[in-house]
């Protein structure tokens, strides 16, 4: 399956990645290659096989409901590009 340039631009927009026209052409080829490979996988007959979310056959480990983290706002904000007191700040985003 070949992706058209508009679909590539839409995927890039959803991922917040800016792409040039040359990149769109290159990505069209690369993404189409990946989708082709998935299509090939789809040829395998898996009827009657339950979907598998992991291969380790382990169960999800659980934690107890205990507060043992937090209380380190300075560390959380240490690399913030912008902050006021203990808030992160970003250019205004409002509905």
């Amino acid at each position, binding site marked *: 399956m070949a992706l058209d340039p508009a679909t590539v631009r839409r995927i890039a927009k959803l991922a917040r990645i800016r792409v040039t026209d040359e990149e769109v052409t290159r990505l069209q080829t690369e993404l189409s290659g990946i989708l082709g490979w998935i299509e090939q996988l789809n040829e395998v007959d898996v009827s009657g096989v339950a979907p598998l979310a992991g291969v380790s056959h382990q169960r*999800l480990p659980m934690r107890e409901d205990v507060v043992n983290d937090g209380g380190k706002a300075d560390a959380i904000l240490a690399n913030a590009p912008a902050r006021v007191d203990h808030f992160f700040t970003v250019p205004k985003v409002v509905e």
Partner: protein
Amino acid sequence: MSYMLEGRTGSWEIVVGLEVHAQVISKAKLFSGAATAFGAEPNSQVSFVDAAFPGMLPVINRECVAQAVRTGLGLAAEINLESRFDRKNYFYADLPAGYQISQYQMPVVGRGSIEIVLEDGSTRHIGVTRLHLEQDAGKSFHDRDPVLSYIDLNRSGVALMEIVSEPDIRSPEEAGAYLRKLRSILRYLGTCDGNMDEGSMRADVNVSVRKTGEPFRTRCEVKNVNSIRFVMHAIEAEARRQIDVWEEGGEVEQETRLYDPGRGITRSMRSKEHAHDYRYFPDPDLLPLVLDPAWVEELRSALPELPDAKRARFIREYAIPAYDAGVLTVDQAVADYFETIAKGRDARLASNWVTGNLFAAMNETGRSIENPPVSAAHLGQLLDLIADGTINGRIAKDVFEAMVETGDAPAAIVESRGLRQVTDTGAIDTAIAQVLAANADKVAEYKSGKDKLFGFFIGQAMKATGGKANPAAVNEALRRALS
């Protein structure tokens, strides 16, 4: 009985489904050990997982899973012993990972049902499609700076249950009843505090309209409505808007909208244009969530008695009207209070005192059932004083008011204020003789056939005894005196 909106081209039925986000009661977050308490200092309850630092891995909180299972059981729903977590991808300033961990294809809880009771006493079942666990996002503040938004991640990663209803709701009233009932169940279970004003329960409202007998038309989603009243208003406002669009020959477009309570209208949320392309995929950091059936049974056997069962039992055991039983069982603490005073006493009288005088006193004093203006023990003692004839029903109301004011036991108030009921027929006869002597003209009118004056004499005689006389004794003595 069915609710319809009138348009230019005839009547329209509304179709509503609700998605309720209920914050799970737990000490720590869904995938981290940071605290969940409301109102803490900004970013003081944030772990590196919640702030999406590179390489940090989520580990699920067992109690959050237990709370979701309890809620599922409380909604008589299927519990899925195997479920899975997916990433829901979107960009927003208060979502540091760029995705929310949620459950898309395999939620932990499947189909269930909620019974609602309407104003006219009729009941309906509203289907629950599913319940899944997901992370909450952080909180943005847009009002502290002209050009900046402030971000606090304390809420980021707190566990939410998203509870999705079937499109079974047909009126604003049903939507309100559904939300109140769901909130009541969550509070009984102790899985969500249901406080909409703190944002721990919020609703997304899916609305469409149709002519009777038609299949569903296109729906719109009104996001993040934060009170039951606003949900009811938003449904009507959005339905009216859609009716106008259809009747003008237009087409309703599926979109996300916001309700503006100030203006009573919904408006489009254009920034969410691409939002429905969430590109869900299984979260590679999390294995499937597999529940041990024995653990689910353990949780089931520890469930409290829920509102529907309690309501049915109150009607059966205490022989009180269905309406009263409904009012008394909305809140578990009210139900407990009622049972404390109803046991071994006149339950109907107990119900009247709780739903009447006690609720009125709570409103006046602004106190809650957890810290009531009159304790259950004291109200019980008051009912005993009525039952054994120490005071009559009218004086009981005065005693109750004094109990609210002073916090004293009813017996002490009755003694110190001399409110004991007068049953001494001699004293009653004396009072009546005085009343009749002072109103000779009325006695004459009564004897010439003006029967209504009997009530006047009763009132005067009660007044003469300071309201303390036994009304039945006064009645009897008066009949004797006038015959």
